[in-house]
């Protein structure tokens, strides 16, 4: 691939439609403590689809709340501020990119949701922000989706090479497209002005920087490997990416934590997919 081709790919990625402003607002507020419940509830309420989904999630068996939640503000209060924000963002992003009814896209989101659920579990055990881990896990492979959507012919060749075990995904992407999904995802995360820690979790999820090993990027790196090992969808050519010793050691987790994360991930995975991937359009 020539340098000109790489530039074409990069420019094409920059032309992607922007995320809805409500999602950008909610994500950019991660790590800030000056946003109150009312402001968050107002932002979610402004988007009817997002409001409906957050109410359905709050009233689902997943959370098993004793009384019916009727307003977004109640949902934010009972779910917790950060959790409500993470779920609202997750459902909106999945809806925004659409195509959850297409097998390939559905498979992508199922892996992303599994990684999100696992990252949340590992982060909780490691004493880190589990809602930020959930969002970073959900979006860690977003570069893969935009490369596949933007360059379907080339990406089919990438997947063929992987299926034939001729290359890892990143190697095949670099050879055929000149950019891999980590770099593509990082560019998007920068364009969308995500918080720095989420940008790094997306851009370095196969090899987090040393300073990030004990933080959200390290959690997402580990979660990505764990969910592939759990083989939740039984994808024929799935492969567990290398789990860096330094990343695992830095998180300070034991084998008991890992076993608990396996149980929690598998136990919550299908319900999370059902809640987050069901389109409001399909319910009308």
């Amino acid at each position, binding site marked *: 691939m020539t340098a000109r081709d790489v530039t074409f790919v990069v420019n094409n990625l920059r032309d992607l439609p922007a995320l809805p402003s409500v999602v950008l607002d909610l994500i950019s507020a991660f790590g800030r403590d000056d946003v109150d419940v009312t402001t968050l509830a107002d932002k979610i309420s402004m988007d009817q689809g997002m409001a409906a989904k957050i109410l359905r999630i709050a009233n689902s068996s997943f959370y098993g709340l004793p009384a019916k939640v009727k307003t977004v503000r109640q949902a934010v209060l009972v779910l917790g501020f950060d959790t409500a924000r993470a779920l609202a963002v997750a459902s909106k992003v999945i809806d925004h990119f659409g195509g959850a009814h297409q097998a390939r896209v559905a498979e992508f989101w199922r892996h992303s949701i599994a990684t999100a659920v696992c990252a949340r579990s590992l982060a909780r055990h490691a004493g880190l922000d589990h809602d930020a881990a959930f969002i970073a896990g959900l979006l860690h492979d977003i570069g893969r989706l935009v490369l596949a959507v933007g360059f379907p012919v080339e990406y089919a060749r990438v997947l063929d090479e992987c299926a034939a075990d001729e290359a890892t995904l990143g190697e095949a992407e670099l050879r055929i497209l000149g950019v891999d999904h980590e770099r593509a995802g990082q560019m998007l995360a920068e364009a969308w002005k995500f918080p720095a820690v989420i940008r790094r979790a997306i851009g370095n999820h196969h090899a987090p920087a040393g300073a990030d090993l004990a933080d959200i990027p390290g959690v997402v790196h580990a979660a990505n490997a764990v969910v592939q090992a759990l083989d939740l969808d039984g994808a024929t050519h799935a492969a*567990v990416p290398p789990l860096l010793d330094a990343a695992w050691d830095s998180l300070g987790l034991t084998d008991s934590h890992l076993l608990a994360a*396996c149980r929690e991930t598998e136990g919550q995975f299908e319900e999370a997919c059902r809640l987050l991937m069901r389109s409001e359009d399909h319910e009308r």
Partner: protein
Amino acid sequence: MTTMTRFRAVPIDEARAGAVLHDDVRDTAGNVLLPRSTVLDGAMLRALARRGVATLLVAADGPTLDHLAAERARVRARLAYLCRHAGDGPANGLLRLVVEQYRLAELS
């Protein structure tokens, strides 16, 4: 080969990996999703639930020792395949060990 004559109906969310199908599982159009005598694993159970299967007919006596041994071998082989690019460092070894124990515990 022994013919299974006793069976019980089990809701899909109560069925366990290692159970043996007494009869074919079909979708609403009559297509066979899994044939009789299949030893169920977690992935199969999740896939059937996604396809809307609510109840399974499984052998009342549970899996035979041969069935369990075959399923354990299948779990180990699948995990070995999944980990083919993961390397053999301590963290990858721990991940593989813990997931294998987790999967095999479903069969005990």
